[in-house]
C-alpha cells in the first residue's frame, strides 16, 4: 500500500516539477514549488523520515515560499526571455538524469534489511543511543551527538546565509528602521482585510506554541532546533504580514535578531568548547556532567536550543531585509 501511495505522490512530484520549469509567470512557479515541497514532505513521511518531512514542510513549503515572494516583490514576476541554449541545457540535463539512473540501477532494493546502510553503522547507532544517551529519537542522537560536528557546520551554513543577506541588502540602503514600511497614514500589512487578520491573529500563538513543542520534544519525537526555528520564525512572519513589518520589528528589533544569529551559533560552540575544557574532545557532551548519560542529554538540549535561536534569527533577518526594500 505504501508503495502504491509513494508511486502516486512521486508521479505528482514529477508533474509539479515539470510545471515549475514550464511556468512563465514566476509567481506561479513559486506557488508550484511550494506544492512541490509539500509533496516531497509527504514522501519523506511515508518513508518514516518524520524529522526530514517536518523540516521540508516548514522550510521548503513555508519559509522559502515567503522569501521567494519577497524577492519577486523587489524584482518582477515575469521570466526573462528564454535563453537560446535551451536544447543544449535539455541535453545536459537528460545525460545527467541518465547517469543518476545508471548509478542507482545496482542499488539494494527498497526496504532491503540487508542493504549496506542498514547493516553497517545503523545497528551501532541504535545500540549506542540506547546505552549512552538514552533518548527515544535516534535521529536526534545521530544529528546532535554522533554527527554533532556536521550539525554545528549546518548551523554555521545558516549563520553564513544570514550574514550574507545582511551584508548585501540589509544595512546599506540608508533607511533607518523607523522609515521602513509604507508612507504615513497608509495601513501596512493586511490591516484592512478584517477576516484574514482575525483568523491569522488567532493562529499566531498556536503556531508559536507548536514551535516550542517541536523544539523541546525533539529528543522524544520528530523535531529539533531546525524545524522549531523555522516554525517560530513562520509565526512571527505571519504576524508581520498581518500587522505590518513595523509592529513585528517592535516585538523583535533588528539588534535582537543580530544577537540571536550570533548567540545561537555561539551557544552551540560554547557547549563544544566546554567539552574540550572539561577533558573531552570538542563536542563531547559526556564530560559535561558527572553522569555521562545526563551529560549527553543536557548537551543535546543546549545545542538544539542554539540551533533554534540561530535559525529563527536568520530567517527573520532575511525576511526583514527583503521587506525593508520592497513591500509585501
Amino acid at each position, binding site marked *: 500500500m505504501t508503495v502504491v501511495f509513494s508511486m502516486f505522490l512521486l508521479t505528482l512530484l514529477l508533474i509539479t516539477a515539470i510545471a515549475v520549469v514550464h511556468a512563465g509567470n514566476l509567481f506561479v512557479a513559486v506557488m508550484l514549488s511550494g506544492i512541490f515541497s509539500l509533496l516531497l514532505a509527504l514522501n519523506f513521511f511515508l518513508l518514516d523520515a518524520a524529522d526530514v518531512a517536518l523540516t521540508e514542510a516548514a522550510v521548503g513549503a513555508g519559509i522559502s515560499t515567503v522569501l521567494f515572494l519577497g524577492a519577486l516583490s523587489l524584482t518582477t514576476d515575469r521570466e526573462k526571455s528564454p535563453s537560446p541554449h535551451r536544447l543544449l541545457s535539455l541535453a545536459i540535463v537528460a545525460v545527467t538524469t541518465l*547517469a*543518476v539512473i*545508471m*548509478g*542507482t*540501477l*545496482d*542499488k*539494494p532494493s527498497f526496504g532491503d534489511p540487508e*542493504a*549496506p*546502510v*542498514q*547493516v*553497517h*553503522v*545503523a545497528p*551501532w*547507532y541504535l545500540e*549506542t543511543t540506547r546505552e549512552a544517551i538514552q533518548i527515544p529519537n535516534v535521529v536526534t542522537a545521530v544529528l546532535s*551527538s*554522533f*554527527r*554533532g*560536528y*556536521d550539525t554545528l*557546520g*549546518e548551523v*554555521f*551554513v545558516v*549563520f*553564513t*546565509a544570514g*550574514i*550574507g543577506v*545582511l*551584508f*548585501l541588502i540589509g*544595512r*546599506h540602503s540608508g533607511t533607518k528602521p523607523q522609515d521602513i514600511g509604507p508612507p504615513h497614514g497608509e495601513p501596512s500589512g493586511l490591516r484592512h482585510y478584517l477576516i484574514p487578520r482575525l483568523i491569522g491573529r488567532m493562529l499566531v500563538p498556536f503556531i508559536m506554541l507548536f514551535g516550542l513543542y517541536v523544539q523541546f520534544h525533539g529528543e522524544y519525537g520528530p523535531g529539533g532546533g531546525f524545524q522549531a526555528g523555522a516554525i517560530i520564525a513562520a509565526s512571527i512572519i505571519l504576524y508581520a504580514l498581518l500587522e505590518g513589518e513595523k509592529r513585528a520589528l517592535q516585538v523583535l528589533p533588528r539588534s535582537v535578531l*543580530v*544577537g540571536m*544569529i*550570533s*548567540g545561537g*551559533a*555561539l551557544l552551540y*560552540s560554547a557547549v*563544544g*568548547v566546554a*567539552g*574540550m575544557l572539561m577533558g*573531552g*574532545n*570538542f*563536542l*563531547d*557532551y*559526556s564530560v559535561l556532567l558527572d553522569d555521562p548519560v545526563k551529560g549527553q542529554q543536557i548537551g543535546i538540549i543546549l545545542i538544539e536550543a542554539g540551533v533554534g535561536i540561530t535559525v529563527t534569527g536568520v530567517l527573520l533577518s532575511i525576511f526583514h531585509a527583503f521587506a525593508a526594500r520592497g513591500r509585501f
Partner: protein
Amino acid sequence: MSALQPHLPALQVIVPMLTAPLVALLRERQFSWLVTTAASLCAFAVAIALTMVVLEQGTISYEMGSWPPPFGIALSIDAVSALLLLVVTGASSLALIAGATSLQAQCESDRQPLFYAAWLLALAGLCGILVTADAFNIFVFMEISSLASYVLVAGGPDRRALPAVFKYLVMGTIGATFYLIGVGVIYLMTGTLNLADMEVRIQQVGEFQPFLIAAAFITVGMALKAAIFPLHVWLPNAYTFAPHVVTVFFAACATKVSLYVLLRLDFVVFQQNVGGHDVQFAYFMLPLSVLAILIASAVAIFEANLKRLFAWSSVAQIGYITLGASLISQAGLTASLLHMFNHALAKGALFLALACLAMSVAKLRVDEIGGIARRMPWTMAAFVVGGLSLIGVPGTAGFISKWYLIQAAFGAGSVGIALIIIILISSLMAVVYIWRVVETAYFGEAANDEAREAPLAILVPTWIAVALNIFFGLHPNLPVELSSRAAAVLLGTGP
C-alpha cells in the same frame, strides 16, 4: 602547548569559525579587522604546528565528540592536508594584513564587521574541508566556504560583481550538488561516509558501475568548483570584480581546495579500488589540462584588464596542477602538489602588487599604467619578481615546480616529450603577458601623474609574499618534502 596539542586538528577549524559570530556582533571597523587578523594568524600558527607534527609523526587523527569513526566524524591530517592548510591560512593572513588599507577604500565602514565575519567563515570552511576525514563533512564545510565566498566576492564597490557572483553561485551550487549526488551513491552502496572506511568497503562490494557514476559526479562537480577547463567560465569575472584582497585570498587557495577534494577522493577512494579508473582519470584530465594551459594563456595575452589577465593565467596554472596529477606517478603528483604551493605564492604576490597599484590607479588596465613604475617603484618591483616566479625563472619558487613537472613529464615516455614542449611554449606565453605589463609600466608614456607609492601597510605584506617566492626558490626543502610525502599518501604508497 602540550595541553593544546591533541586538540590542534579541531582548533584549526574552530578558531576562525567561532570568531566569526563574535566579529559579526562588533560595530567598530578597526577592532573587527584586528580580531579577524588575529584569528587568521592563530589559524596559521596552528597550521605550522600541525605541519611540524605531521612531518615528525605522520598522520594525526581526532575524534569529534569522542565518537569513533565511522560512526562519528573523525578529522585526519596528513601531508596533503598540511601542505594546503599552510597555503590557505598563510594566504588569508597576508591578504588580511594588506586588507587594512585596501579594503578601507572598497567597503563601507559599517559593513566591514560583517565582511570580516564572512572572511572568517570562508577561512574556516576551507580549513574544515582540509582537515576532515568524512565525505559528508566535506560537503558541509564546502557549503560554508562557498556561501561566504559569494559574499566576499560581492563585497566590493563594483556593481558588476553581482552578475559575476550570481554565475559563480549557480555554478558552485551545481558543483556542490554533484558532489553530494556522488557521495550519496557511495553511501547507498557502502553504508559509510568515512573516507578510509569507504576505501575498504568499496573493495568488498565488487561492483564497479555505481562507483564509476559516483566518480563521474564528484569529478565533474569538483572540476566546476576548481575551475578546471572548460568549466572555468565563472572564474575570470568573479576574480576581476571582487575586492582586491579577496582576489589575493581566493587566487591563492580557493580553487586549490576543490582540487584537493578531487584528488583525495579520486586517488584514495576510487583509483585504488575501481579497476582501470586511473587510466580513465588520465585520459580525461590530460587533454583538458593541455587545453587549459594553451587556451587560457592565449586569452591572457590579449586581455587588457589586469585582474582578468591574471585570472585567466590562473585557469592556465590550474592546468599545470591537473597535468601533473594526470600523469598518475609519484613524480607527477609531487609536481602537481608543489605547484599548488608555489602558484599560491606567485599569484598571491602578483595580486598583492595589483592591490598596491589599485591604491593609486582607478582602473586596473594595461593602458592606464604607462610609466607607473617611476612613481611606484616598490610596487612594480614586487610585480616583476612575482611575474618571474609565475614564469618559472630559476631562483624563484615557480621554477621549482616547473622543474619537477618537466622531470615528471620525462618519466612519462613519448607523450612526456610533447608535454615538455607544451610547458615550454606556455612559459613563453607567460613571458609575453607579464612583459606586456612590465614594458608599459617601465617604459610606457606616463599616463598618470597623480600616482604615489602605495602605503607601507600594504607594501609590507606584498614584499613578504615576494620574499617567500625567493626564499622557497632557493630553499625548496619544506614544500618539496611535504609534496612528495603527500603524493605518496595519495598513491597509497606512503604513510
